[in-house]
């Protein structure tokens, strides 16, 4: 039941905030802050209970499980369940969702001054849907939550975004909806294939895992589902929606897009594509990994070429998520752990960078690097924090991103992809370039435009404290995170390796 609460709290918080905003806008902000914080505490409590040695439930590698009948069609024998379950992977993702959720409420505290109630309704709806995506283990429910993320995100961009918001919002919506529908077709094809083999209609994840499929059919279904997730990820060359959406969204929107929405794509690959279509994924792995490396290099090079700060940060996401994709398809312990750490670290560091750029834009009303420069002298606090997260993004040892990317490269190397490892390492080189450019052009050098702006107030700077702590923690001692993830990872590997085949080292 606690899993249902996780979602219900967010949605009801959003509705309450919407209603409250009619009388008092501050109340709306406090209500949503309370809702996400409550969720965050819930997820921490779950984590504490789990690391204190909780056991698996008998029906799978789940720590917590909630199953209720939702839509039943007795004549056809179809039962769709409201089945939520949590393992280490979803636990970490939910915790990340809540942490970034808190950040997104705080960062919009001053930025959003119009239509506050409706804004928070949408914000909470996105967060609720994302938690739903991370918890759903009934494929119909999963698809439902997956599509539910779209509409509020669309509104967030289209109503509170920057100059070209409509264009960006429509592009975002159409890209993700198109591939979402392909995913739906794949899910249904899988369900009917399962029905043909066993005579049972089911959307249950655990039941569908061992569906016997012909090689060709499995490959097509895998491809459909893969495309659905790869667009969200985003995988090169399916990324064109991303720079626009990230750039035009309000800060909270960019934060959620980069920190969470992209992760749902990676999560889907881990949770569904690998275990449901093991052989097909193995056949497809070289192609996916090649595209991943292409994305790493392309994203980094494009980021280097940007002059708009937000666009720069947006393109770094393409590069970082390339590492995640690479790790997922290398499929050994190293690579999967690396992919997971990368996901969390990217959420924190890139999310923070978006918040910082948002703060800067609020003060200077520009995101163009050419119009900035030499800001360190006038806003040392903001610049210092930006420096920290830029270092994180470039993969400085001691910070989370480094651990993730290092593990992914190790894993890829061990999986026997020497060429790809080398090429991906070149991408890391480029990430140094864009990170340094970001710092140098905006914060260092002479203050040619005579900027005199207010630095972060201590209270505002304090918001970044948890993000800094998490990033350092991931960089220095990622073991608790990896340990939490391990059983889930083993389950994924167990399903994605053919019987008798040793996992790729």
């Amino acid at each position: 039941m606690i899993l249902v609460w996780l979602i219900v709290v967010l949605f009801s918080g959003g509705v309450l905030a919407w209603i409250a905003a009619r009388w008092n806008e501050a109340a709306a902000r406090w209500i949503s802050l309370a809702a996400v914080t409550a969720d965050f505490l819930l997820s921490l409590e779950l984590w504490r209970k789990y690391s204190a040695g909780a056991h698996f439930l008998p029906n799978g590698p789940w720590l917590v499980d909630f199953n209720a009948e939702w839509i039943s069609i007795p004549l056809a024998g179809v039962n769709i369940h409201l089945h939520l379950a949590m393992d280490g992977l979803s636990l970490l993702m939910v915790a990340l969702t809540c942490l970034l959720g808190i950040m997104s409420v705080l960062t919009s505290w001053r930025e959003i001054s119009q239509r506050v109630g409706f804004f928070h309704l949408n914000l909470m709806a996105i967060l609720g849907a994302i938690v739903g995506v991370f918890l759903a283990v009934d494929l119909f429910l999963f698809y439902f939550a997956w599509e539910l993320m779209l509409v509020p995100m669309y509104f967030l961009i289209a109503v509170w975004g920057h100059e070209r918001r409509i264009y960006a919002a429509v592009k975002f919506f159409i890209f993700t909806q198109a591939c979402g529908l392909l995913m739906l077709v794949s899910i249904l094809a899988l369900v009917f294939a399962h029905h043909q083999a066993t005579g049972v209609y089911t959307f249950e994840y655990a039941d569908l895992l061992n569906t016997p499929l012909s090689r060709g059919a499995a490959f097509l279904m895998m491809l459909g589902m893969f495309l659905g997730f790869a667009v969200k990820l985003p995988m090169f060359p399916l990324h064109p929606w991303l720079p626009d959406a990230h750039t035009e969204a309000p800060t909270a929107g960019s934060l959620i897009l980069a920190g969470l929405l992209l992760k749902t794509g990676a999560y889907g690959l881990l949770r569904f594509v690998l275990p449901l279509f093991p052989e097909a994924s193995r056949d497809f792995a070289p192609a996916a990994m090649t595209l991943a490396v292409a994305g790493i290099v392309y994203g980094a090079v494009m980021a280097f070429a940007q002059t708009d700060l937000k666009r720069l940060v947006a393109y770094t996401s393409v590069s970082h998520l390339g590492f995640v994709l690479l790790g997922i398809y290398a499929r050994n312990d190293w690579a999967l752990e690396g992919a997971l750490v990368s996901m969390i670290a990217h959420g924190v560091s890139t999310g923070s960078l978006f918040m910082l750029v948002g703060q800067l834009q609020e003060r200077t009303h520009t995101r163009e690097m050419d119009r900035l420069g030499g800001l360190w002298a006038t806003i040392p606090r903001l610049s210092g924090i930006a420096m920290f997260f830029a270092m994180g993004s470039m993969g400085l040892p001691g910070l989370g991103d480094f651990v993730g990317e290092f593990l992914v490269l190790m894993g890829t190397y061990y999986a026997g992809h020497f060429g790809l490892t080398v090429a991906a390492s070149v991408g890391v080189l480029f990430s140094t370039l864009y990170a340094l450019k970001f710092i140098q052009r905006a914060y260092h050098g002479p203050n040619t435009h005579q900027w005199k702006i207010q630095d972060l107030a201590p209270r505002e700077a304090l918001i970044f404290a948890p993000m800094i702590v998490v990033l350092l923690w991931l960089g220095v001692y990622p073991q608790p995170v990896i340990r939490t993830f391990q059983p889930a990872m083993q389950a994924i590997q167990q399903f994605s390796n053919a019987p008798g085949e040793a996992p790729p080292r």
Partner: protein
Amino acid sequence: MTAQDLTALLPFIVVSAACLVVLIATAVRRSHAVAGLVTVAGLTAAFGLLPAAASVAPRAIGASGAGALVVLDGYGLFFIGLILAASVAVAVLAYGYLDRQEEHREEFYILLLVAVLGSMVLAASSHFVSFILGLEILSVALYSMCAYLRDRAISLEAGIKYLVLAAASAAFLLFGMALIYAEFGTMNFSYLAAQMTAGAYPDRALVAGGLALMITGFGFKLALAPFHLWTPDIYEGAPAPVTAFVASVSKGAMFALLLRYFSSTSAARLHGVFLVFAVIAATSMIAGNLLALLQNNLKRILAYSSIAHMGYVLVAFLAAGDLGPEAVTFYLVAYFITTLMAFGVVAVLSPAERDADRLEDVEGLFWRRPVLGALLTLALLSLAGIPATAGFFAKFYIVAAGASSGIWRLIVLLVVTSVAGLFYYLRVLVAVYSQPAESAEPAPRLPLASGVVLALLGILIVWLGVFPGRVLETVQLAVASLRF
């Protein structure tokens, strides 16, 4: 005719009686309120009598040597219920809409009731005679309903266009029926079914020609491409409540009949017929979705979108097994609710002199009239098939039905074209959520009854999208009675 037959026909009798009451009352003294009330009461009473009719179902009526004219089985009654419920919504919306007009408002309800009667006959028809009878009753009433606001040129144009094209399509249908009758010597669906399944037709060309002509007639009525040319003009020209009726009830009744005819004669399984329908479905999805992109008028956008939606329904129609008819029926239920909502919002926004069907009319609607804006949003999302709306589950069901019978090419086309469809739904949404223009003329006050109907439709859209179980069960029972 036995007492049981009369019980089964009670809904028809009540609607006809209501029609007469309005006619006489209007002749004695004009009163818009009375006409509207009697109409809604009559339709509601007919709806309330459905359980009584169901208690004697299935009932074949008019069983003589020629075979039953109408069959009141679970399937027919389900559609009759749907038609009646939708007509109540149309009547209420029309009341609010016509209340702003100056003169001659009462006759509208007579026409509406006649049209409802025709649709009900269609939904229950199992014979070519009752088919053409129902169709003509419906069409003749619709001509005048389209042209009801006589001082609007665009409305008159719509009426005349509909008259010419509907008459032409009826001619096609009649000639097709004649050819089939010439071959089989019967006009009853189940007799036809028996002969067709036996494969006893020496003259294939005659049957093929007859079916082709009938499909053309169906295509006209359902506005499937390439027979869709009348749709945008009539949607645009007809008063908004009439458009709602044309889009929902008249098409739904026709689809009910199509499903009954083809599933009982299993003619859709014939290779050639399947192919023709597949091509029509494909062209409808493509043409509807692409042409809608070019429109700037809300009603025209919805017209083209309806062409595409009928194409989707046709995909489910072509799916084999039980899932196909179920998906068709469920989709129609969802589509009824959604289109009624969309045109209902247009109707309540319309001032006396014109329909509020330009995109500028809904600009900033969400900020000016939050509730209406939210309801229109819901309708658009449902049309686009976004979760937590009726349209989502309906589309899901169609894809499921298609996947179960392996018509992959049509399914992929459905997916691709509905993505194109997103563009124009989003265009309207963008307008609804844009900054309202300062000079925007204030929309007329929302009549209470219309508000209640719209709110109910909104609840239904969400309910069907989140908990479709109960309705699905009913749909399945209804469709199960289709197999005899």
